[in-house]
C-alpha cells in the first residue's frame, strides 16, 4: 500500500514537472512556483478554455516566454497582469476580475442556490400540508 502511494505521489510530481515547458524556467524554486501560478492565471486566447500553462498552442508558448521575460526583468504580479490586460483585455485573466460588469457573474452561484432553496422550501412546506394520497400507502385515507 505504501509503495503504491509513493509511486502515485512520484507520478504526480513527475506530471507537475512536465506540466509547463520541457525544463524548469527558473533555477530558483520560488520563482518557478510563481511562474507556474501566473501561467495558470492567464488564458490562452487561441484555445479559450485553457490557461497558457495547459496549452501548447503557439500563442500560449509565446505568452509563456513573455511571462518569463517579464518575471526575469523583475516585474511584480500586478505589473504583469496589467501588461497582459492592456494588450488582451480582462478576458486574458482566467479568473474574471470583480468589477461592476461581472457582479452578476460572481453573484450567480449564490443567487442560484438561494433561488433554488426558496423554491424548494415553498414546495416542501406546501406538500407537507397536503393529505397523504399515495395509493400504495396502506394507511391511505387514514389521515
Amino acid at each position, binding site marked *: 500500500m505504501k509503495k503504491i502511494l509513493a509511486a502515485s505521489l512520484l507520478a504526480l510530481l513527475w506530471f507537475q514537472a512536465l506540466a509547463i515547458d520541457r525544463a524548469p524556467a527558473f533555477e530558483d524554486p520560488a520563482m518557478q512556483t510563481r511562474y507556474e501560478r501566473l501561467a495558470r492565471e492567464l488564458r490562452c*486566447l*487561441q484555445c479559450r478554455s485553457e490557461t497558457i500553462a495547459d496549452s501548447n498552442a*503557439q*500563442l500560449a508558448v*509565446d*505568452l509563456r516566454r*513573455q511571462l518569463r521575460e517579464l518575471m526575469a526583468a523583475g516585474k511584480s504580479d500586478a505589473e504583469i497582469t496589467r501588461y497582459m*490586460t*492592456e*494588450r*488582451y*483585455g480582462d*478576458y486574458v485573466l482566467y479568473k474574471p476580475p470583480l468589477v461592476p460588469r461581472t457582479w452578476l457573474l460572481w453573484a450567480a452561484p449564490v443567487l442560484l442556490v438561494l433561488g433554488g432553496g426558496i423554491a424548494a422550501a415553498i414546495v416542501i412546506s406546501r406538500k407537507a400540508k397536503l393529505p397523504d394520497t399515495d395509493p400504495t400507502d396502506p394507511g391511505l385515507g387514514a389521515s
Partner: protein
Amino acid sequence: MLKYLVPIGLFAVLFGFMYFGLGRDKQTLPSPLIGKPAPIFALPLLEDPSKTFSNSEFAGKPYVLNVWGSWCVGCRHEHGALMEIARRAEVPMIGLNWNDDREQALLWLKQLGDPYAINAFDGESRVAIDWGVYGAPETFLVGANGKVLKKHTAPITVEIWDQEFVPLLKQAAQP
C-alpha cells in the same frame, strides 16, 4: 393567478437571455487598443532581414495593419479581398508577417499577389503580442493621429471593408 405568472415570468427571462445570447458574437474579443495609440515597432523586412521597418515612418498618415502568415487558412480566404482593397489604394497596407517561414511567405506573395505596401517580419510574436493579436488574420485601422480606430478579427471581405472601414477613413485622415 400567481401560479401562472411565476413560470411564465421565469420562462420570459430565460427566453430573453437565450434570444440575445444567440445573436451575440462570442468569438471576437473586444480589443482594449481601440482609441489608444498604436504600439510602435521596429522589425526586419520580410524581403530583406538586413533592413528594418518601423511603423513610426507612417506617423501622421492613416494606415492598415494586416496580420497574416502562410500557415493561416483564413489569410488565404481573405487574400482576394486584400488585393481588391489594395487596388483601390484608399489607404496603405502594412503586412505583419506573424510566426512565419520567410521563404513560404515570399512564395505566397509571389503566387497570390502582394497587396502590401511593406511587410514586417515578426518571427518571435513580440509585435503581435504588443498589438493583442490572438488569431490571424487580424486587420487594424490606424488613424493619422496614431490611434487605433478599428480592429477586425477573422478574414476580411470587401463588404466588411465597405461597411466598417470605409466610413472611418475620413476620420482616420484627420490629424
